[in-house]
């Protein structure tokens, strides 16, 4: 590389790299440091090394009759709800993506546009729409009252939160699924049928394996943001069924325990990174297997 080119590269790279290092990497590193410092009441830290935050997270005894303490339960709940949300989104998103892929190109674009619109509209507003419907004196209950049916109390329950999570995540599942189903060669299906495969076998042996990259991409795009959701559990769960986002916000906000909040963020990031690495490994292994 000539000296001139090197200077040009530096000019192009430096401003963006500076911003990302100073305002993204350094703050992330700061959270690691804060997690082993002492607590200052009302927010902030005392600069002395301690493992109190991690001890509190892992060694707080569970309440009587429970297997895990409340903090660990929030971790498990966030992961479990992300699993359920991904599963429901896949279950209704896959047939939708398949349906869209079967349409004529002109109509296909209209459907895709309809899936894309929620992606561009404000998430807070879309979550509020469900609160408006599910609230105790909201639309659903006034319809039920008008029909002389018993009222339901869904708001501030796990059901309300799951509805909101699926609602917010569905487009993120459908778009990557569509991208991989669109590439599916329908001659493969015919070939499998000609060779005597029934519909179930065509689905499990041809369609699902070929579209697996889309399934994995969709699950990734749904799973990770859901584990860190703050808006949905706050608005539709009323903070009563807390997820990791609520716990983090509480520790950095009203509870004012920054080292504890930092320890939670650190464990969260480590789990996510472990998940991403495990996924990359399994992908590599599958590619090897498919080549040999």
């Amino acid at each position: 590389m000539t000296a001139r080119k090197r200077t040009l590269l530096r000019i192009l790279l430096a401003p963006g790299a500076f911003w990302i290092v100073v305002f993204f990497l350094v703050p992330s590193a700061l959270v690691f440091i804060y997690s082993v410092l002492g607590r200052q009441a009302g927010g902030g830290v005392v600069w002395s090394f301690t493992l109190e935050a991690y001890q509190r997270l892992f060694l707080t005894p569970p309440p009587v009759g429970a297997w895990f303490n409340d903090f660990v339960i929030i971790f498990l709940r966030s992961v479990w709800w992300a699993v359920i949300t991904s599963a429901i989104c896949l279950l209704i998103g896959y047939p939708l993506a398949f349906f869209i892929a079967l349409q004529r190109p002109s109509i296909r674009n209209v459907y895709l546009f309809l899936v894309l619109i929620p992606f561009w509209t404000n998430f807070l507003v879309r979550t509020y729409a469900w609160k408006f419907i599910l609230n105790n004196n909201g639309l659903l209950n006034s319809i039920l009252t008008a029909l002389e049916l018993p009222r339901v109390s869904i708001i501030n329950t796990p059901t309300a939160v799951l509805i909101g999570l699926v609602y917010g995540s569905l487009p993120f599942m459908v778009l990557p699924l569509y991208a991989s189903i669109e590439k599916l060669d329908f001659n493969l299906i015919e070939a499998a049928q000609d060779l005597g495969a029934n519909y179930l076998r065509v689905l499990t042996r041809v369609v699902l394996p070929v579209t697996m990259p889309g399934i994995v991409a969709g699950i990734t795009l749904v799973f990770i943001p859901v584990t860190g959701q703050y808006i949905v559990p706050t608005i539709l769960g009323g903070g009563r069924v807390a997820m990791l986002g609520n716990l983090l916000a509480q520790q950095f906000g009203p509870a004012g325990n920054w080292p504890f909040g930092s320890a939670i963020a650190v464990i969260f990031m480590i789990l996510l990174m472990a998940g991403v690495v495990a996924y990359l490994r399994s992908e590599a292994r599958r590619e090897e297997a498919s080549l040999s």
Partner: protein
Amino acid sequence: MRTVSSPPANRLLTAGKGLLWLNMIFCFLFLYAPIAVLVAFSFNDSRLAASWQGFTLRWYVEVFNSRSVISAFQNSLIVAFAATIIATILGTMTSLAMERFRFRLRRTYDGVLYLPIIIPDIVMAVSLLAFFSLTLGWMNSLLGLQGAQALRPGLATVVIAHVAFNISFVAIVVRTSLRELDPMLEEAAQDLGADEWTTFRKVTLPLIMPGILGGALLAFTLSLDDFVITFFTTGPGGTTLPIEVFGRIRRAISPEINAISTIMLMMSMILIIVSQIFQRRSGR
């Protein structure tokens, strides 16, 4: 799928197609009914969500007369424009460096660029809160600023935070259009005697412009819609529209929120239409 061998299989296929239709209708009802209800009830002449009492525009009048909503809207626009301009310039420069140069740590930096997209926004939000609190504290004691003079989080910290995640989004979009660019076009310009800078200005830049505008539009939308990161990096006087709406939602549901929400939906619609026009122009 065209040739179906036997009648029972045919019936199964019809049933399958029917199920696909039903599922499609369910999905779109699920996606759009809540939005439709929200918009409809912003015109309802009743403070209670319970029932339809006739058409009115008075919630819109109240929203437009609300000082807090107007100032929040102004703040949102200031943040979105500032963050978009900075992130688009830095993101485009980054993508040129990544696509046109080979350098040490390139692969590592490639991974780092994806991190702000992968990391859940709440984690980025609390780490920026800790970071700004620490650095603003240092700057205040260094400059001897106290009381009302002291530096506090506000719109500036929000813009900084929004740029931090938007650089990555812009870079991804622009890199795609750089990769799709036919290298022959640039080579041809240079064979005809254009220097590097002229080639960039007259050939490369116009060709990747749809990508840059697409990236800018994405950044603008993400900035305008962001709640979580803004909530943790803003301060007194730095209320944006999503923060204002969130505060109102926590108090109670009200027809004014429906009116603000409808206005925000309209803004999103305009942005989508603009983005579609850009995509048509770029011929994709």
